[in-house]
Protein backbone atom coordinates (compact mmCIF):
# COMPACT_ATOMS: atom_id res chain seq x y z
CA UNK A 1 0.00 0.00 0.00
CA UNK A 2 1.41 3.41 -0.84
CA UNK A 3 2.65 5.24 2.22
CA UNK A 4 0.52 8.27 1.40
CA UNK A 5 -2.66 6.27 1.44
CA UNK A 6 -1.75 4.55 4.70
CA UNK A 7 -1.04 7.89 6.34
CA UNK A 8 -4.40 9.10 5.10
CA UNK A 9 -6.19 6.09 6.53
CA UNK A 10 -4.56 6.24 9.97
CA UNK A 11 -4.83 9.96 10.54
CA UNK A 12 -7.68 11.48 12.49
CA UNK A 13 -7.31 14.74 10.67
CA UNK A 14 -7.23 14.75 6.89
CA UNK A 15 -3.59 15.37 5.98
CA UNK A 16 -4.59 16.13 2.38
CA UNK A 17 -6.53 19.25 1.40
CA UNK A 18 -10.18 18.50 0.81
CA UNK A 19 -11.83 19.23 -2.51
CA UNK A 20 -13.77 22.02 -0.82
CA UNK A 21 -13.08 24.15 2.26
CA UNK A 22 -15.50 23.45 5.07
CA UNK A 23 -17.22 26.46 6.61
CA UNK A 24 -18.86 25.82 9.97
CA UNK A 25 -20.90 28.98 10.12
CA UNK A 26 -22.48 31.42 7.73
CA UNK A 27 -21.20 34.97 7.79
CA UNK A 28 -23.78 37.64 8.70
CA UNK A 29 -23.49 39.26 5.26
CA UNK A 30 -22.32 38.55 1.71
CA UNK A 31 -22.16 40.65 -1.43
CA UNK A 32 -23.94 37.93 -3.41
CA UNK A 33 -25.89 34.88 -2.28
CA UNK A 34 -26.36 32.13 -4.85
CA UNK A 35 -29.18 29.68 -4.17
CA UNK A 36 -28.45 26.29 -5.68
CA UNK A 37 -25.16 24.38 -5.67
CA UNK A 38 -25.55 22.74 -9.03
CA UNK A 39 -23.55 23.41 -12.17
CA UNK A 40 -25.26 26.71 -12.94
CA UNK A 41 -24.93 28.20 -9.46
CA UNK A 42 -21.33 27.09 -9.01
CA UNK A 43 -20.37 28.30 -12.49
CA UNK A 44 -21.82 31.72 -11.70
CA UNK A 45 -19.84 31.77 -8.44
CA UNK A 46 -16.67 30.78 -10.30
CA UNK A 47 -16.95 33.50 -12.94
CA UNK A 48 -18.02 36.11 -10.37
CA UNK A 49 -14.77 35.43 -8.53
CA UNK A 50 -12.51 34.90 -11.57
CA UNK A 51 -13.80 37.51 -14.03
CA UNK A 52 -15.46 40.12 -11.85
CA UNK A 53 -13.35 40.00 -8.69
CA UNK A 54 -16.41 39.47 -6.47
CA UNK A 55 -15.41 36.86 -3.89
CA UNK A 56 -17.55 37.68 -0.88
CA UNK A 57 -20.07 35.20 -2.22
CA UNK A 58 -21.79 32.19 -0.73
CA UNK A 59 -23.49 29.31 -2.50
CA UNK A 60 -26.34 27.70 -0.55
CA UNK A 61 -27.28 24.12 -1.38
CA UNK A 62 -30.16 22.29 0.27
CA UNK A 63 -28.73 18.83 -0.49
CA UNK A 64 -25.26 18.11 -1.83
CA UNK A 65 -23.26 19.62 -4.69
CA UNK A 66 -24.48 18.56 -8.11
CA UNK A 67 -27.19 16.37 -6.58
CA UNK A 68 -30.00 17.96 -8.55
CA UNK A 69 -30.38 18.11 -12.29
CA UNK A 70 -26.61 18.56 -12.76
CA UNK A 71 -26.16 14.93 -11.74
CA UNK A 72 -29.41 13.68 -13.27
CA UNK A 73 -29.16 14.69 -16.92
CA UNK A 74 -27.91 12.56 -19.80
CA UNK A 75 -24.80 14.76 -20.25
CA UNK A 76 -25.40 15.81 -23.85
CA UNK A 77 -23.75 18.99 -25.11
CA UNK A 78 -24.79 20.58 -28.42
CA UNK A 79 -25.73 23.90 -29.98
CA UNK A 80 -27.96 23.02 -32.96
CA UNK A 81 -30.94 25.00 -31.75
CA UNK A 82 -33.69 26.70 -33.72
CA UNK A 83 -33.80 30.40 -32.84
CA UNK A 84 -30.92 32.84 -33.44
CA UNK A 85 -30.96 33.70 -29.71
CA UNK A 86 -30.66 30.04 -28.78
CA UNK A 87 -28.02 29.17 -31.36
CA UNK A 88 -25.69 32.04 -30.40
CA UNK A 89 -26.10 31.30 -26.72
CA UNK A 90 -25.49 27.55 -26.85
CA UNK A 91 -22.64 27.95 -29.35
CA UNK A 92 -20.78 30.14 -26.87
CA UNK A 93 -21.38 27.42 -24.31
CA UNK A 94 -19.93 24.68 -26.52
CA UNK A 95 -16.85 26.86 -27.05
CA UNK A 96 -16.41 27.26 -23.30
CA UNK A 97 -16.83 23.52 -22.72
CA UNK A 98 -13.95 22.64 -24.97
CA UNK A 99 -11.20 24.02 -22.74
CA UNK A 100 -12.92 23.67 -19.40
CA UNK A 101 -10.84 20.63 -18.35
CA UNK A 102 -7.66 22.69 -18.74
CA UNK A 103 -9.29 25.60 -16.98
CA UNK A 104 -10.12 23.46 -13.94
CA UNK A 105 -7.13 21.11 -14.07
CA UNK A 106 -9.74 18.37 -13.70
CA UNK A 107 -10.67 15.80 -16.32
CA UNK A 108 -14.30 16.27 -17.35
CA UNK A 109 -14.10 13.41 -19.85
CA UNK A 110 -15.38 15.79 -22.48
CA UNK A 111 -15.90 13.50 -25.43
CA UNK A 112 -16.80 14.75 -28.88
CA UNK A 113 -19.16 12.20 -30.43
CA UNK A 114 -21.30 13.80 -33.12
CA UNK A 115 -25.04 14.11 -32.62
CA UNK A 116 -27.82 12.78 -34.87
CA UNK A 117 -31.39 13.98 -34.52
CA UNK A 118 -33.30 11.30 -36.42
CA UNK A 119 -36.24 12.31 -38.60
CA UNK A 120 -38.93 9.68 -39.16
CA UNK A 121 -41.50 11.98 -40.79
CA UNK A 122 -41.55 14.66 -43.46
CA UNK A 123 -42.40 17.22 -40.79
CA UNK A 124 -39.36 16.25 -38.71
CA UNK A 125 -37.15 16.42 -41.78
CA UNK A 126 -38.48 19.89 -42.52
CA UNK A 127 -37.62 21.07 -39.00
CA UNK A 128 -34.17 19.52 -39.44
CA UNK A 129 -33.57 21.53 -42.63
CA UNK A 130 -34.78 24.68 -40.90
CA UNK A 131 -32.44 24.09 -37.96
CA UNK A 132 -29.54 23.29 -40.29
CA UNK A 133 -30.02 26.58 -42.17
CA UNK A 134 -30.24 28.67 -38.98
CA UNK A 135 -27.21 26.85 -37.56
CA UNK A 136 -25.07 27.29 -40.70
CA UNK A 137 -25.97 30.97 -40.81
CA UNK A 138 -24.29 31.33 -37.42
CA UNK A 139 -21.31 29.24 -38.47
CA UNK A 140 -22.24 26.06 -36.62
CA UNK A 141 -21.51 22.66 -38.12
CA UNK A 142 -24.95 21.27 -38.77
CA UNK A 143 -26.33 19.51 -41.81
CA UNK A 144 -29.11 17.23 -42.97
CA UNK A 145 -27.88 13.75 -43.88
CA UNK A 146 -29.55 10.67 -45.35
CA UNK A 147 -30.28 7.36 -43.65
CA UNK A 148 -27.06 5.85 -45.04
CA UNK A 149 -24.99 8.29 -42.97
CA UNK A 150 -26.87 7.19 -39.85
CA UNK A 151 -26.26 3.53 -40.70
CA UNK A 152 -22.57 4.23 -41.23
CA UNK A 153 -22.20 5.97 -37.86
CA UNK A 154 -24.30 3.40 -35.96
CA UNK A 155 -24.19 0.14 -37.94
CA UNK A 156 -26.34 -1.75 -35.43
CA UNK A 157 -29.40 0.41 -36.07
CA UNK A 158 -32.58 -0.90 -37.67
CA UNK A 159 -33.30 1.91 -40.14
CA UNK A 160 -36.94 0.86 -40.43
CA UNK A 161 -37.32 0.98 -36.62
CA UNK A 162 -39.32 -2.24 -36.51
CA UNK A 163 -41.27 -1.14 -39.57
CA UNK A 164 -43.17 1.50 -37.55
CA UNK A 165 -41.08 4.58 -38.13
CA UNK A 166 -38.52 4.31 -40.95
CA UNK A 167 -35.68 6.82 -40.67
CA UNK A 168 -35.88 9.31 -43.56
CA UNK A 169 -32.83 11.32 -42.61
CA UNK A 170 -31.21 13.15 -39.73
CA UNK A 171 -29.82 16.44 -38.58
CA UNK A 172 -26.12 15.84 -37.97
CA UNK A 173 -24.23 18.08 -35.59
CA UNK A 174 -20.52 17.21 -35.47
CA UNK A 175 -19.65 19.15 -32.26
CA UNK A 176 -22.22 17.16 -30.23
CA UNK A 177 -20.46 15.81 -27.11
CA UNK A 178 -20.89 14.23 -23.71
CA UNK A 179 -19.07 15.01 -20.44
CA UNK A 180 -18.96 13.72 -16.89
CA UNK A 181 -21.64 15.85 -15.32
CA UNK A 182 -20.77 15.68 -11.63
CA UNK A 183 -17.18 16.64 -12.40
CA UNK A 184 -18.50 19.86 -13.90
CA UNK A 185 -20.07 20.84 -10.58
CA UNK A 186 -16.90 19.85 -8.70
CA UNK A 187 -14.64 21.70 -11.12
CA UNK A 188 -16.59 24.94 -10.87
CA UNK A 189 -17.05 24.46 -7.13
CA UNK A 190 -13.35 23.92 -6.45
CA UNK A 191 -12.40 26.83 -8.72
CA UNK A 192 -14.80 29.10 -6.85
CA UNK A 193 -13.67 27.74 -3.47
CA UNK A 194 -10.00 28.42 -4.24
CA UNK A 195 -10.91 32.01 -5.03
CA UNK A 196 -12.65 32.57 -1.70
CA UNK A 197 -16.28 31.74 -2.44
CA UNK A 198 -17.99 29.91 0.45
CA UNK A 199 -20.00 26.80 -0.41
CA UNK A 200 -22.55 25.72 2.20
CA UNK A 201 -24.16 22.35 1.61
CA UNK A 202 -27.20 21.09 3.50
CA UNK A 203 -28.32 24.67 3.90
CA UNK A 204 -31.92 25.27 2.97
CA UNK A 205 -33.31 28.67 2.07
CA UNK A 206 -36.52 29.30 4.02
CA UNK A 207 -37.29 32.81 2.88
CA UNK A 208 -35.98 35.88 1.08
CA UNK A 209 -36.44 39.33 2.58
CA UNK A 210 -37.64 42.00 0.18
CA UNK A 211 -38.05 45.57 1.42
CA UNK A 212 -39.41 48.24 -0.89
CA UNK A 213 -39.04 46.00 -3.96
CA UNK A 214 -35.40 45.30 -3.15
CA UNK A 215 -33.67 42.20 -1.80
CA UNK A 216 -32.19 42.70 1.67
CA UNK A 217 -31.47 39.24 2.98
CA UNK A 218 -31.92 35.50 2.94
CA UNK A 219 -33.26 33.32 5.76
CA UNK A 220 -31.88 29.80 6.01
CA UNK A 221 -32.15 26.84 8.36
CA UNK A 222 -28.67 27.81 9.60
CA UNK A 223 -29.32 31.48 10.25
CA UNK A 224 -30.05 34.71 8.45
CA UNK A 225 -27.82 36.50 5.96
CA UNK A 226 -27.88 40.13 4.85
CA UNK A 227 -27.28 40.64 1.15
CA UNK A 228 -28.33 42.95 -1.66
CA UNK A 229 -28.04 40.40 -4.44
CA UNK A 230 -29.50 36.92 -4.77
CA UNK A 231 -29.09 34.62 -7.75
CA UNK A 232 -31.62 31.82 -7.99
CA UNK A 233 -30.32 28.73 -9.85
CA UNK A 234 -32.47 25.93 -8.47
CA UNK A 235 -34.01 24.19 -11.53
CA UNK A 236 -37.13 22.28 -10.45
CA UNK A 237 -37.47 24.25 -7.21
CA UNK A 238 -37.64 27.61 -9.04
CA UNK A 239 -41.41 28.19 -8.49
CA UNK A 240 -40.93 27.68 -4.74
CA UNK A 241 -38.14 30.27 -4.57
CA UNK A 242 -40.08 32.70 -6.80
CA UNK A 243 -43.00 32.44 -4.35
CA UNK A 244 -40.64 33.74 -1.65
CA UNK A 245 -40.18 37.01 -3.55
CA UNK A 246 -43.73 37.15 -4.93
CA UNK A 247 -42.89 36.75 -8.62
CA UNK A 248 -45.37 34.92 -10.87
CA UNK A 249 -43.85 32.84 -13.68
CA UNK A 250 -44.96 30.47 -16.42
CA UNK A 251 -42.75 27.68 -15.09
CA UNK A 252 -44.36 24.29 -14.58
CA UNK A 253 -42.54 21.27 -13.20
CA UNK A 254 -42.71 17.81 -14.74
CA UNK A 255 -40.32 14.96 -13.94
CA UNK A 256 -37.92 13.85 -16.65
CA UNK A 257 -36.74 10.29 -16.25
CA UNK A 258 -33.61 8.58 -17.50
CA UNK A 259 -31.91 5.22 -17.10
CA UNK A 260 -28.64 3.40 -17.80
CA UNK A 261 -28.01 -0.14 -18.88
CA UNK A 262 -25.35 -2.48 -17.60
CA UNK A 263 -21.92 -1.71 -19.13
CA UNK A 264 -21.31 -3.32 -22.50
CA UNK A 265 -18.40 -3.21 -24.95
CA UNK A 266 -18.15 0.05 -26.91
CA UNK A 267 -20.41 -0.15 -29.95
CA UNK A 268 -22.11 3.24 -30.16
CA UNK A 269 -19.98 6.29 -30.85
CA UNK A 270 -22.47 9.04 -31.74
CA UNK A 271 -25.37 10.41 -29.71
CA UNK A 272 -28.73 9.51 -31.24
CA UNK A 273 -31.99 11.33 -30.62
CA UNK A 274 -35.37 10.44 -32.02
CA UNK A 275 -38.29 12.79 -31.54
CA UNK A 276 -40.86 10.39 -32.98
CA UNK A 277 -39.79 7.47 -30.79
CA UNK A 278 -39.17 9.76 -27.79
CA UNK A 279 -35.69 8.42 -27.07
CA UNK A 280 -32.14 9.54 -26.85
CA UNK A 281 -29.16 7.31 -26.34
CA UNK A 282 -25.41 7.53 -26.00
CA UNK A 283 -22.77 5.22 -24.60
CA UNK A 284 -20.72 6.46 -21.67
CA UNK A 285 -16.99 5.98 -21.22
CA UNK A 286 -17.82 3.16 -18.80
CA UNK A 287 -19.83 1.36 -21.48
CA UNK A 288 -23.27 2.00 -20.00
CA UNK A 289 -25.98 3.05 -22.39
CA UNK A 290 -27.37 6.34 -21.14
CA UNK A 291 -30.99 6.65 -22.21
CA UNK A 292 -33.70 9.21 -21.78
CA UNK A 293 -37.21 9.85 -23.02
CA UNK A 294 -39.72 12.65 -22.99
CA UNK A 295 -41.20 14.31 -19.93
CA UNK A 296 -43.67 12.58 -17.67
CA UNK A 297 -47.11 13.64 -18.87
CA UNK A 298 -48.23 15.41 -15.71
CA UNK A 299 -46.96 17.76 -13.02
CA UNK A 300 -45.04 16.27 -10.07
CA UNK A 301 -42.55 18.10 -7.83
CA UNK A 302 -40.52 15.12 -6.73
CA UNK A 303 -37.91 12.83 -8.19
CA UNK A 304 -39.94 9.64 -8.05
CA UNK A 305 -39.51 7.02 -10.77
CA UNK A 306 -42.22 4.98 -12.42
CA UNK A 307 -42.26 1.48 -13.86
CA UNK A 308 -44.06 2.69 -16.99
CA UNK A 309 -40.97 4.65 -17.94
CA UNK A 310 -38.37 1.88 -18.49
CA UNK A 311 -41.07 -0.26 -20.05
CA UNK A 312 -42.04 2.35 -22.64
CA UNK A 313 -38.51 3.54 -23.29
CA UNK A 314 -37.18 -0.01 -23.71
CA UNK A 315 -39.91 -0.78 -26.26
CA UNK A 316 -38.84 2.18 -28.37
CA UNK A 317 -35.16 1.43 -27.87
CA UNK A 318 -35.73 -2.08 -29.24
CA UNK A 319 -37.41 -0.61 -32.32
CA UNK A 320 -34.10 1.13 -33.06
CA UNK A 321 -31.68 -1.49 -31.75
CA UNK A 322 -33.36 -4.93 -31.64
CA UNK A 323 -30.08 -6.61 -30.60
CA UNK A 324 -30.30 -4.92 -27.16
CA UNK A 325 -33.15 -7.19 -26.09
CA UNK A 326 -31.00 -9.08 -23.57
CA UNK A 327 -29.22 -6.05 -22.11
CA UNK A 328 -30.32 -5.26 -18.57
CA UNK A 329 -31.38 -1.90 -17.22
CA UNK A 330 -29.22 -1.08 -14.24
CA UNK A 331 -30.55 2.16 -12.76
CA UNK A 332 -33.31 4.65 -13.35
CA UNK A 333 -33.90 8.04 -11.83
CA UNK A 334 -35.72 11.32 -12.36
CA UNK A 335 -35.05 15.03 -12.25
CA UNK A 336 -37.52 17.87 -11.83
CA UNK A 337 -37.63 19.83 -15.07
CA UNK A 338 -38.75 23.47 -14.78
CA UNK A 339 -40.50 23.82 -18.12
CA UNK A 340 -41.48 27.03 -19.93
CA UNK A 341 -44.15 27.55 -22.61
CA UNK A 342 -41.60 28.31 -25.35
CA UNK A 343 -38.92 25.81 -24.29
CA UNK A 344 -36.39 28.59 -23.76
CA UNK A 345 -34.93 29.49 -20.33
CA UNK A 346 -35.82 32.48 -18.16
CA UNK A 347 -32.74 34.48 -17.24
CA UNK A 348 -31.64 37.84 -15.99
CA UNK A 349 -32.99 40.66 -13.86
CA UNK A 350 -36.48 40.47 -12.41
CA UNK A 351 -39.07 42.96 -11.11
CA UNK A 352 -37.47 42.55 -7.65
CA UNK A 353 -34.29 44.61 -7.51
CA UNK A 354 -31.26 42.50 -6.64
CA UNK A 355 -33.05 39.21 -7.41
CA UNK A 356 -31.63 37.48 -10.48
CA UNK A 357 -33.12 34.41 -12.05
CA UNK A 358 -31.42 31.57 -13.89
CA UNK A 359 -34.30 29.16 -14.35
CA UNK A 360 -36.75 27.61 -16.75
CA UNK A 361 -34.01 25.22 -17.74
CA UNK A 362 -36.41 22.35 -18.22
CA UNK A 363 -34.70 19.55 -20.05
CA UNK A 364 -31.95 21.57 -21.72
CA UNK A 365 -29.86 23.03 -18.89
CA UNK A 366 -26.68 20.94 -18.62
CA UNK A 367 -25.14 21.96 -21.93
CA UNK A 368 -25.62 25.62 -21.01
CA UNK A 369 -23.78 25.42 -17.67
CA UNK A 370 -20.63 27.40 -18.66
CA UNK A 371 -22.39 30.14 -20.60
CA UNK A 372 -25.02 30.53 -17.89
CA UNK A 373 -22.26 31.03 -15.35
CA UNK A 374 -20.58 33.60 -17.60
CA UNK A 375 -23.68 35.58 -18.50
CA UNK A 376 -25.33 35.45 -15.08
CA UNK A 377 -22.14 36.51 -13.30
CA UNK A 378 -21.93 39.47 -15.69
CA UNK A 379 -25.61 40.27 -15.07
CA UNK A 380 -25.24 40.09 -11.29
CA UNK A 381 -21.96 42.03 -11.21
CA UNK A 382 -23.20 44.87 -13.44
CA UNK A 383 -26.92 44.73 -12.63
CA UNK A 384 -27.43 44.65 -16.41
CA UNK A 385 -28.58 41.75 -18.58
CA UNK A 386 -25.75 40.28 -20.65
CA UNK A 387 -26.30 40.73 -24.41
CA UNK A 388 -26.57 36.97 -24.97
CA UNK A 389 -29.56 36.57 -22.64
CA UNK A 390 -31.79 39.47 -23.69
CA UNK A 391 -34.02 37.02 -25.56
CA UNK A 392 -34.60 35.01 -22.38
CA UNK A 393 -35.93 37.58 -19.90
CA UNK A 394 -39.05 37.00 -17.79
CA UNK A 395 -40.94 39.96 -19.29
CA UNK A 396 -41.03 38.34 -22.74
CA UNK A 397 -44.21 36.58 -21.65
CA UNK A 398 -45.97 39.76 -20.57
CA UNK A 399 -45.00 41.29 -23.93
CA UNK A 400 -46.05 38.21 -25.94
CA UNK A 401 -42.53 37.98 -27.41
CA UNK A 402 -41.68 34.34 -27.02
CA UNK A 403 -38.44 32.64 -28.07
CA UNK A 404 -39.81 29.44 -29.61
CA UNK A 405 -37.34 26.61 -29.11
CA UNK A 406 -39.87 23.79 -28.96
CA UNK A 407 -38.66 22.19 -32.18
CA UNK A 408 -35.09 21.86 -30.95
CA UNK A 409 -35.02 21.79 -27.16
CA UNK A 410 -35.84 18.18 -26.40
CA UNK A 411 -37.54 15.08 -27.68
CA UNK A 412 -41.17 14.23 -27.92
CA UNK A 413 -42.70 17.67 -28.13
Amino acid at each position, binding site marked *: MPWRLLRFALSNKHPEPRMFTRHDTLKPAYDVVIIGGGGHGLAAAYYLARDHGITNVCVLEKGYLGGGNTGRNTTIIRSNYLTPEGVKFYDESVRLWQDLSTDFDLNLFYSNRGHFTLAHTDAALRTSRWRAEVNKHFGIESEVVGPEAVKKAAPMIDLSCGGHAPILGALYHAPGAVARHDAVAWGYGRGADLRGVEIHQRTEVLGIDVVGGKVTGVRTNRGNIATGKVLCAVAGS*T*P*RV*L*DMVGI*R*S*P*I*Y*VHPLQAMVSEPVKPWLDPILVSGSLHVYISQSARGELVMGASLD*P*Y*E*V*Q*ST*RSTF*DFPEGLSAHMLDMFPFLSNVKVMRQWAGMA*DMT*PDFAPIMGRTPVEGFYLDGGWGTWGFKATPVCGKTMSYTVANDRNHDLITGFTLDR*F*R*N*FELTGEKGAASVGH
Partner: protein
Amino acid sequence: MTCPVNGPRAISEFAYGGEIRPMPDPTTCSDDAWADYVFNRNGSPGVKREWWCHTPSNTWFVAERDTARDVIVRTYLYAGDS
Protein backbone atom coordinates in the same frame (compact mmCIF):
# COMPACT_ATOMS: atom_id res chain seq x y z
CA MET B 1 -56.55 6.68 -10.39
CA THR B 2 -60.28 6.31 -9.87
CA CYS B 3 -62.50 7.64 -12.63
CA PRO B 4 -65.82 8.81 -11.11
CA VAL B 5 -67.71 6.89 -13.82
CA ASN B 6 -65.50 3.95 -14.76
CA GLY B 7 -63.83 3.15 -11.45
CA PRO B 8 -60.18 2.54 -10.58
CA ARG B 9 -57.89 2.17 -13.59
CA ALA B 10 -54.19 2.25 -14.47
CA ILE B 11 -52.80 5.77 -14.75
CA SER B 12 -51.90 5.06 -18.40
CA GLU B 13 -55.63 5.22 -19.25
CA PHE B 14 -55.77 8.89 -18.23
CA ALA B 15 -54.69 12.18 -19.76
CA TYR B 16 -53.72 15.21 -17.69
CA GLY B 17 -55.51 18.47 -18.50
CA GLY B 18 -53.72 20.92 -16.21
CA GLU B 19 -54.77 22.84 -13.15
CA ILE B 20 -58.30 24.32 -13.04
CA ARG B 21 -57.87 28.07 -13.47
CA PRO B 22 -60.56 30.74 -13.75
CA MET B 23 -60.41 32.63 -17.06
CA PRO B 24 -60.71 36.41 -16.94
CA ASP B 25 -63.14 37.99 -19.41
CA PRO B 26 -60.93 38.53 -22.49
CA THR B 27 -62.98 41.50 -23.70
CA THR B 28 -62.67 43.53 -20.50
CA CYS B 29 -59.46 42.47 -18.75
CA SER B 30 -56.13 44.26 -19.19
CA ASP B 31 -53.33 42.89 -21.40
CA ASP B 32 -51.28 42.12 -18.31
CA ALA B 33 -54.10 40.16 -16.70
CA TRP B 34 -54.61 38.24 -19.94
CA ALA B 35 -50.87 37.47 -20.31
CA ASP B 36 -50.87 36.32 -16.69
CA TYR B 37 -53.74 33.94 -17.45
CA VAL B 38 -52.21 32.67 -20.70
CA PHE B 39 -48.70 32.01 -19.45
CA ASN B 40 -48.31 32.06 -15.70
CA ARG B 41 -48.80 28.92 -13.67
CA ASN B 42 -48.80 27.92 -10.05
CA GLY B 43 -45.67 25.77 -10.27
CA SER B 44 -45.15 25.16 -6.55
CA PRO B 45 -46.07 21.82 -5.00
CA GLY B 46 -49.32 21.38 -3.13
CA VAL B 47 -52.77 19.82 -3.35
CA LYS B 48 -54.21 21.10 -6.64
CA ARG B 49 -57.54 20.75 -8.45
CA GLU B 50 -56.81 19.43 -11.92
CA TRP B 51 -58.59 18.34 -15.07
CA TRP B 52 -58.12 14.71 -15.99
CA CYS B 53 -59.68 12.62 -18.73
CA HIS B 54 -60.32 8.88 -18.82
CA THR B 55 -59.37 8.47 -22.47
CA PRO B 56 -61.14 5.21 -23.45
CA SER B 57 -64.49 6.72 -22.42
CA ASN B 58 -63.54 10.39 -22.95
CA THR B 59 -64.78 11.25 -19.44
CA TRP B 60 -63.44 14.56 -18.14
CA PHE B 61 -63.44 14.98 -14.37
CA VAL B 62 -61.71 16.77 -11.52
CA ALA B 63 -58.91 15.25 -9.44
CA GLU B 64 -57.46 16.74 -6.29
CA ARG B 65 -53.86 15.66 -6.27
CA ASP B 66 -50.84 16.36 -4.08
CA THR B 67 -48.23 17.27 -6.69
CA ALA B 68 -45.33 16.96 -4.24
CA ARG B 69 -46.00 13.29 -3.50
CA ASP B 70 -48.02 12.38 -6.62
CA VAL B 71 -50.89 11.14 -4.48
CA ILE B 72 -54.51 11.49 -5.61
CA VAL B 73 -56.68 12.79 -2.78
CA ARG B 74 -60.08 12.43 -4.48
CA THR B 75 -61.82 12.55 -7.85
CA TYR B 76 -65.28 13.76 -8.83
CA LEU B 77 -67.26 15.00 -11.81
CA TYR B 78 -67.19 18.73 -12.48
CA ALA B 79 -70.29 20.28 -10.98
CA GLY B 80 -70.13 23.70 -12.62
CA ASP B 81 -71.99 24.90 -15.69
CA SER B 82 -72.38 22.07 -18.18
